[in-house]
């Protein structure tokens, strides 16, 4: 083996990599927020008394969870222009990841809502509160709290999976790494560094999420 390792070109490209990190964080955090919001809507449809809404939600969730995320990304970016929806790489990436995240979040949050004792909802009703208020002020926080670790794992997975959107030229970390590779041919060094950066991002995201968890979703329990 006579390969000489040379990380210098990789480190020299740090502004590009930093831009990639920002792209990854921007696209995945937006997708998490939108995905959680949309997921809660699907969860409510899934749990509603109307069979029509339930069927739509179940169909959607099953469709997303049983097809590859890369296919979903390709469909949004390459497929949707056929019906007149033309998106930039980044827009398509955020939309596809939001749609993907929503299906998983819907199922996770449903587990949380089902863990709430009926007495909580009855107490809200007995106090005269409307259903929407009961879900917003009584059910939401304890439900999210109950499934918070699962939700965080899903968010971290989403951030890692965001490397796939480089394939539709969304300018995130992997996209820039590939560009750098084609310029320098330092594949070993580049992808090793890339791996280390993703590892660090996971750790940071995990720390941020657990801070959010401690501030918004924790309270004393026995």
């Amino acid at each position, binding site marked *: 083996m006579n390969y000489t390792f040379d990380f210098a070109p990789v480190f020299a490209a740090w502004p590009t990599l930093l831009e990639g990190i920002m792209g990854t964080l921007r696209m995945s955090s937006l997708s998490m927020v939108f995905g959680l919001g949309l997921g809660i809507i699907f969860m409510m449809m899934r749990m509603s008394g109307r069979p029509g809404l339930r069927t739509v939600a179940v169909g959607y969730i099953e469709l997303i969870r049983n097809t590859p995320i890369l296919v979903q990304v390709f469909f949004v970016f390459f497929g949707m222009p056929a019906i007149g929806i033309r998106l930039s790489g980044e827009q398509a990436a955020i939309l596809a990841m939001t749609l993907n995240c929503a299906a998983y979040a819907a199922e996770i949050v449903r587990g949380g809502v089902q863990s709430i004792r009926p007495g909580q909802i009855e*107490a809200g009703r007995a*106090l*005269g509160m409307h259903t929407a208020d009961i879900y917003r*002020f009584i059910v939401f926080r304890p439900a999210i709290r109950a499934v918070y670790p699962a939700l965080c794992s899903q968010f971290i997975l989403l951030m890692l999976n965001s490397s796939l959107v480089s394939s539709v030229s969304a300018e995130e970390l992997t996209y820039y790494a590939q560009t750098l590779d084609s310029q320098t041919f330092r594949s070993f060094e580049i992808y090793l560094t890339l791996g280390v950066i993703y590892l660090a991002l996971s750790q940071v995201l995990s720390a941020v999420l657990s801070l959010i968890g401690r501030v918004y979703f924790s309270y004393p*329990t026995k």
Partner: protein
Amino acid sequence: MDRSSMSDKTIEMIGVNKWFGPLHVLKDIDLTVARGEHIVLCGPSGSGKSTLIRCINHLEEIQKGAIFVNGTELGPQGNNADHIRRDVGMVFQQFNLFPHLTVLENCMLAQRRVRKTSVAEARDKAMRHLERVHIAEQAAKYPAQLSGGQQQRVAIARALCMDPQVMLFDEPTSALDPEMVKEVLDTMISLADDGITMICVTHEMGFARAVAHRVIFMDRGEIIESAAPEAFFSNPGHERTRAFLGQILNH
């Protein structure tokens, strides 16, 4: 039908029937509760006591009969349920405090969302009622940090914050350790002394003697007997009542 003129009747149940699937849990219940009246409801487990009071604020639907609260008819599908729930407070066996909110926030939430009270006013009223149940000093704590008896007193204060005209209690002391029963019963006795209308499902016969105007005995979905406590305990008219009293008083 206008019943607002009959203001001495706070609750009126007429021929109320309820089924859970094939199970007939309430059979032709007729019950009138006068303003300021205190009723203790007792009977064996599964006789329909909880279901009966839960129909009054429409936590359960009835299939037949009519229920009026303050002259407003509660339709079988829950028409007017919102209106009626404003007048009816409820205290549950399991307290059902909101675990993610402090004691104070538990008492403020419905005031804010239902009555649209300002924060300052809601807090004032919450503190007043927390003082009334002697727990104001715990206002900043979370439910899990309180004992069962303290939690139940907070639950009572939370209900009172909505200015109910009627309070429903569903075995409020059954989930408590024995040493905490008294503090909750004392709170309820002081409410009774203030003249609020109440229906209380309980087997605390000391409480019944102290505050009840009427003790009602239910069995298998029917009201078997209804009498003033003196007569109820000393001279029950029905064999089933006697058997039941024998059981609960002997242990």
